[in-house]
């Protein structure tokens, strides 16, 4: 098993996503960076939707809900936000 890649917190998009996720999951961005597995937190149907709405509003993007549900890790989620933004 390879070591899990940790999000690069110096990056602006990463920092913003961690900040938003932290607010939704009631944890600090530092904790999220340290343990990027979403399943380790209260990542359920309600918080997923809360994160969807918050991310869409912060980045002015629309994210496909199916794509969001497919994400398991914070860094995958950050990539999804980036892809949605680039696709605009």
């Amino acid at each position, binding site marked *: 098993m390879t070591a899990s890649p940790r999000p690069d917190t110096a990056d602006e998009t990463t920092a913003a996503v961690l900040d938003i996720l932290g*607010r939704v999951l009631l944890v600090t961005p530092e904790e999220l960076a340290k343990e990027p597995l979403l399943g380790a937190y209260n990542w359920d*149907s*309600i918080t997923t*939707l809360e994160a969807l709405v918050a991310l869409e*509003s912060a980045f002015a993007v629309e994210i496909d*809900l199916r794509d969001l549900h497919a994400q398991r890790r914070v860094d995958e989620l950050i990539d999804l936000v980036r892809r949605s933004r680039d696709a605009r």
Partner: protein
Amino acid sequence: MDPTTLIRAVRDAVAEAAAPPADVRLALVTGDDPALIRSLGAILADLPAPTAGLRPIRLSVLGTGTLGAVPSLLRAVLVGAGLAPVIETGEYGRFELELALGSFRHEIDPDAVVCLLAEEFFLPAQPQGMAVEDVIGHLRGRLAELRGLLGTATGHTSAMFILPTVPLSRTVRDCFISVRDRAALSAAWHRLNADLLALTAEDRQVITVDLVGVLAQQPVRARDNRLHRYADMPYTDAALLIFAQEVRRVLQARAGLSRKVLALDADNTLWGGVLGEVGMHGVELGGLYPGNAYADLQRAAAGLRGQGVVLALVSKNDAGIVTELLNEHPEMLLRPDAFSVLAANWNAKAENLRGAARSLGLSTDSFVFMDDSPYEREHVRAELPEVAVLAADGDPAHLAETLLRGGWFDVLDLTEADHQRPDLYRTRALRHEYAAAYSSSEDYLKALDIRLTSADATPFSIARIAQLSARTNQFNMTGARFDETTTAAMAQAPDHLVASFSVADRFGDEGIVGAAWVHRSTEEWRVLNLVLSCRVLGRGVELAIAQWLFDRAADAGARRVHADFVSSPKNSVAAGTWERAGLLPDPDAHDGTRGYTRELGELGGIAPDWITFTDPVEQI
């Protein structure tokens, strides 16, 4: 306040189990980012109930779909308004059952039941393919069922029910391809919403807020199809925040936490331009844009004044030129007598606001201050964080809406006293001048010719009595707050007495300024609460009221009176009243409650001799 600072401040308050500071609370009320407000509401869920400095309120939140962010959003904006909500939520899919069975009451009866209605409640399961008349018939039937449910539910409780008007989604409206059918459906839908709003007039326990009307004026989607399909969430968080704000306005008004004073800057707020530089003839006011925008703000302020909001003018200017303009400019709508306080001078504005609060006998936490200068606003914010500060800079076309949209001054019902309040506060300022001419306060009080009229509550006075109960914080003996429904019930009950007290003097009639709620048995009369507006404090009126109550008790054959004083952070002015009225403290005081009793036969006259009792019947 930026999001990070705000989140930290709210976390700190929760960690200390304390009410968030005034500036943080204002940010909660004025915030428009639903994601942020929702997060703050989630953090605030750990605030203990009760919290010192916040008024407790129990809410039950029911919905015809998933409630989603509603409880968190409500909690955040209500804490912002000075309330400490305990929120119970209904079970998903049990909306009708909860209303029918009264199970929304949980362990304790709530103060308010918030019902998040959505279109699914009223529509048939598959309107597509139905004749439009059949859909309309179904809507009528469902409205009748809702009325029935609310009728049953209000029978279970004295709680207030708050509902929204309901938007109709395009998926339903546009499935009718005939233009005439669509118009018929829309007409029926508007009627449905009009009928929901009419419930507010029909039933004292129901209030409908116009969610549809507010949504139409804002760039906010009512529904997100993904959230609706995936989780049966009928509204977006942004729409829910608008709903939560409308609910906040109702509950803030119900709790008497709305603001009472509007302090306005003059230059570039009441008119365009700097008076000291351009002169009276050079200011922009009335006529075409931008002058009409300032006239609009003046009309809005005059409208508020007509409904009981006290106006103050706070301007860094020479008093002479301001008074000249107020008197002589033909387009000026607010003349000098519209303002209960005129402070045109070179003092710091915070100092003038404090001075205005002193002369009005009101606290600065009942003030809204509007100014175009960021410097002045920041200064007032720093000095008086409890004052709600509104920005009057930017395009003057927005001025009137900026003033009105926050709902700072909302009340549930306007009473006679509201209409008269600005004039009452003006006479109060005159009375201060008059006092200076007398050598002793007793001479002054005698010359005032104070008349007290005491009367049993009537259907005409109950709204005002309930308003006093909600709004009076200083002279409030026990803090027990009896709302309109409870007060009306007590006024009817043979074992209770609800009385109103009106005061008049040589300067004018103050109207109903006090109220008492009394439990009476053959042996003992128990004063459950006595409240008196701060407008009439310091004149011995409370002792005349006590005298009237004791005389009534003696006439009814009671042997003894009992009364309590429960101290709060604001009511120290009322401490000692029962001793001064001749009652003796009970030895077993506990929890800040002090009890007082006396045999009625042992009580002498206590009313000051400068107060005359007048009979309500004779007055008419």
